[in-house]
């Protein structure tokens, strides 16, 4: 794995990495991906991917409004009245 690839992944993951971090991660990601590559040895022809340990499917509930006394808004780093405040999302 090349350092440009690692930069691209960091960009997708929205993480700022220092030069040193990039260097170390380039080495580590390469060795981890080499290590997990041994899965290629396994014959998976005709195998269905695993989904859930206990037989559960389509757990549904009614889409009803319930009262909620949990205050989540005040946990935000910046708020205005009862809203979460952020920097602009859309540029002109």
């Amino acid at each position, binding site marked *: 794995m090349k350092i440009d690839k*690692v930069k691209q*992944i*960091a960009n*997708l*993951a*929205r*993480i*700022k*990495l*220092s030069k040193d*971090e990039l260097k170390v*991660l380039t080495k*580590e*990601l390469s*060795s*981890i*991906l080499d*290590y*997990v*590559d*041994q*899965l*290629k*040895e*396994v014959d*998976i022809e005709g*195998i*269905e*991917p*695993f*989904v*859930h*340990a*206990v037989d*559960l499917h389509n*757990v549904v*509930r009614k889409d009803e409004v319930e009262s909620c006394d*949990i*205050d*989540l808004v005040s*946990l*935000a*780093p*910046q708020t205005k009245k009862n809203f*979460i405040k*952020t*920097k*602009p*999302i859309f540029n002109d």
Partner: protein
Amino acid sequence: MIKDIQSKLGKEYSCKEITKQYLDKKDDFNIFITKREEALKEAEEVDKRIKNGEKITGLMGIPMAIKDNILIKGTRCTAASKILDNYIAPYNAHVIDKLDGAIFLGKTNMDEFAHGSSGEHSAYGNTLNPNDREYVPGGSSSGSAASVVADLAVCALGSDTAGSIREPASFCGVVGLKTTFGSVSRYGLMSMVCSLDQIGPLTKSVEDSEIVFRAIKGRDKRDSTSIDYRVEDDKKEFIVGIPEEMIDDVDKDVKRIFDDSVKRLEEKGIKFKKIHLPNLKYGIPCYYIITPAEISANLARYDGVKFGMSAKSDDILSNYFETRGQFLGEETKRRIMIGTHVLSSGYYDAYYLRAQKVRAKIVQDINNAFNEVDLIFTPTAPFLPFKIGEKVDDPISMYLADLLTIPASLAGTPAISLPAGKMGNLPVGVQFIAPVMKEQRLFNIGKIFEQCQK
């Protein structure tokens, strides 16, 4: 232990007295991230209830420690990450509500967001192993395991994704239970790997493990993966399988204590049989694709906008980059990066989908084994507790700690780690794995095992 304390509550001592006794103990091992002084007031309430004639049930009156990724309303909850340094939990986890009357002494140290097997990935300094301070206590539920062996709590809750309850239980010398996937609601547990995370107890005895499990199990409509769970009587005579494939990977000291455990159980009339788990060695590579993939999705929520720490930046995009760059730790970044890569366009089939298919094969091996045997028996960890710093720069050698705990996680089956002996100061644990929903079988064999340790 739990029953003994409860039998004395309101007679030999009050709940407030025992709570104060526990809160006043010195934390020499960096076990707690946050202590809850309000526990004293809560203990007074319990004393009132007992005085009013209320029957003592469940965990009522018992001083407990809670892993810092489980929410207690009004108490700081960091998951040992700087990105949640200022986060105050706005509601209770379901398990906290279920433990009505239990006393929560504090929130225990862990690997950041439960990413690790040694406790060294905590942003608040690593927990020391109370058996020997130079060694790791195991992880990620490091503080919860250490709190129980150091008697800074009567018992504790942890979470287990690939061994995060069982491995620290083994390294510290306590009982650790990984519960059946879905048996305990995860509402209010910070998500790491949704297809694997489970809450479970760390305790001083199998009986205590059973008491805590019975108190926290059951369906919760706020966790759609939780299931109805009825405790049923289970057999008390067993055929136990020992997987052939693990032998080469187990350290000789661990192997000696394991073989000794087999001998003692045979003397109690337990029958053993060789079994095969041909895909055992693929468990770790399989896990280290599924896990980072789900982590990269789950940890996208830490964006500096909705809660937690936030960097000061001029625009929204650099605020994401700066916040996550500054406040997330090394292992967490590593896992998010791997996960982002394996889920990125063009790689999904090669990595995640393949891993889920290999997972299906590993699960099939375990189900096949359970056609022949009632339980599977292994050491909990393939090696002894290691020295602090020994593996921290080599992620893959750290990942190998999970070799024998991963299969039960991938299959969603329950498993229990029990203290089996010591090599010098260092405890060694052994693990029983049972079929899905058969926690009772683990408690039954666990009690037999405890008797042969005496």
